[in-house]
């Protein structure tokens, strides 16, 4: 029996150089559908490498569907999703899982499972029949627990944790997977405001420290504007606008995408666009 200790490594040397001018992850004319229900047609999107991309839109606009398509959870009816220059559905499943991690919306942990056990399962794509728990696995889990501030929860039962702690643990699982692309579907839903900010700060830190590409689906426009380098607005299954938040967010776009009458001003803290809904009684007559 041989036990080695290594420095914690957070991300595997998974950085492959994409052809110049092309993002590692992109959709080309993707048509996304569940059974016969087409959600989005002819989607083209490039996910900027090393940046935080946030997808926003009203309920049922197809933003989660787009994320599922990008994460290989949904096979496009037509067109393709390309990872590192290859059709993502032609790459071996395990290879994709070593480059791209996905945290689904509202994941459910098996009953009675401990934090360390759950986070450890993030190492699945690096394991095999005879490679069940390598020292790399151990180091990656320790690093993921440390990075998300959940190390002291390691032996606790996931059922006992608060919503905010639980979300951190799931992010730790995605981190332990050691992917340079991280996709998260509404990671702040059902969290109170303090914990929403907490989770987003954590993701921003992971992005800045390791240069990880992060893609998020978010509900809150103001938080999206603060944290996004690249904002994607969707409506009825189509991308209406994309770019830096300051260029994308406008009163007409908010009215178009969310059907919301709003006033936009610079966020006094960050300078990013701040969307202030205008109540019916205060609307100016045209």
């Amino acid at each position: 029996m041989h036990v080695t200790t290594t420095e914690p490594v957070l991300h595997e040397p998974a950085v492959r150089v994409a052809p110049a001018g092309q993002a590692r992850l992109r959709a080309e004319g993707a048509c996304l559908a569940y059974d016969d229900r087409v959600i989005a047609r002819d989607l083209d999107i490039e996910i900027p490498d090393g940046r935080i991309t946030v997808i926003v839109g009203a309920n049922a606009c197809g933003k989660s569907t787009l994320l599922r398509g990008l994460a290989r959870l949904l096979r496009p009816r037509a067109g393709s999703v390309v990872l590192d220059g290859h059709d993502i559905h032609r790459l071996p499943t395990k290879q994709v899982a070593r480059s791209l991690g996905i945290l689904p919306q509202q994941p459910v942990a098996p009953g009675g499972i401990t934090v360390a056990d759950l986070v450890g399962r993030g190492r699945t794509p690096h394991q095999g029949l005879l490679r069940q728990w390598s020292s790399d696995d151990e180091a990656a889990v320790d690093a993921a627990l440390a990075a998300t501030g959940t190390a002291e929860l390691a032996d606790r039962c996931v059922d006992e944790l608060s919503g905010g702690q639980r979300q951190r643990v799931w992010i730790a699982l995605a981190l332990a997977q050691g992917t340079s692309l991280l996709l998260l579907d509404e990671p702040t839903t059902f969290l109170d405001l303090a914990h929403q900010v907490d989770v987003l700060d954590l993701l921003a830190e992971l992005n800045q420290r390791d240069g990880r590409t992060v893609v998020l689906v978010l509900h809150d426009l103001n938080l999206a504007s603060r944290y996004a380098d690249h904002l994607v607005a969707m409506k009825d299954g189509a991308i209406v606008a994309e770019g830096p938040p300051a260029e994308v967010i406008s009163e007409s776009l908010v009215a178009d995408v969310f059907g919301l009458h709003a006033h936009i001003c610079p966020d006094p803290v960050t300078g990013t666009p701040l969307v202030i809904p205008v109540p019916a009684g205060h609307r100016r007559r045209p």
Partner: protein
Amino acid sequence: MWVLRWPRPEVSLRVHGRAVAVTAALLAVGFATFAWSLSVGDFPIPIGDVLAGLAGGGSEDAGFIVRTLRLPRALTGVLVGAAFGLSGAIFQRVARNPLASPDIVGIEAGAAAAAVVTIVVLGGSTAQITIGALAGAVLAAVAIYALAHRRGVTGHRLVLVGIGVTAVLHSVTSYLLTRAEVHDAQRAVVWLTGSLHARGWEHVRPTSVAVAVLVPVAMALGRHLRALELGDDAARGLGTRVEGARAALLLTAVALAAVGTAAAGPVAFVALVAPQVARRLVGHRSLALLPSAATGALLVVAADLAARRLLSPVELPVGIFTAVLGAPYLLHLLVRANRAGTGG
């Protein structure tokens, strides 16, 4: 959890300490029960003579009774129990629902219906009944999977469809029994209850080969359960081929249930109860596959011993005993599921 590592070639294995300890303890208790069951009967043999008989020595009479009459029966019990326990563990973990075990969702009912067809309609031999039961289990499994499949299979739908299929199969069995000759009907009813009566080496040999092949397959596939338990999307995101892994696991579990049923009939509730008992013994961190198999084996051997001796000289089929023990547990699960509103 212990980790065994070799640097070159790079190999690392997870060993769950408590699961190993629990399995060892279950095997020890199981072996004691096994030896005891070889010792008692109409012709009691002291334990010392039993052990001598097992080793091939001892007196001629005792050796004959131990090796030819009692040993194959007890071994069949061990194999059948292990097969049911492991099958139930896989089913319950894949479906994430304790009610989704082969005795509830119709796999054993399929084997039983096919066996009754073989007995009543075809007048088949013991070997033909075995083959019929195997085919019935597989056909029932295919039907249940096809009916429950809608963009993947959820545990809840598997249980509901399985209960429906079980009801249909039971009505087929009942209809055939009402039409059968008395002798055939009696044979069928004993088989349907689940019995180890008159099991010989001709039962042990095929069953042991099947179990010896299926257990390592189940253990190798078992590691996919750790990802599958997180839900389909998360498992897929972790690089698991969800549909393929689940189908392979269920197929292995169906084969185990079919082999067990073919050898001893649908011994009630073993597949349902054994994994739950094992899980409580080892805690949640282990997959508890081997402990479930060991629990199943102990359960069947102990139940058969009780069924043989409790109302001596009347011998009851082992299935009656496991049903008496298992039915209250099923009620407990149903009541709890109802209260929690989770379906298990």
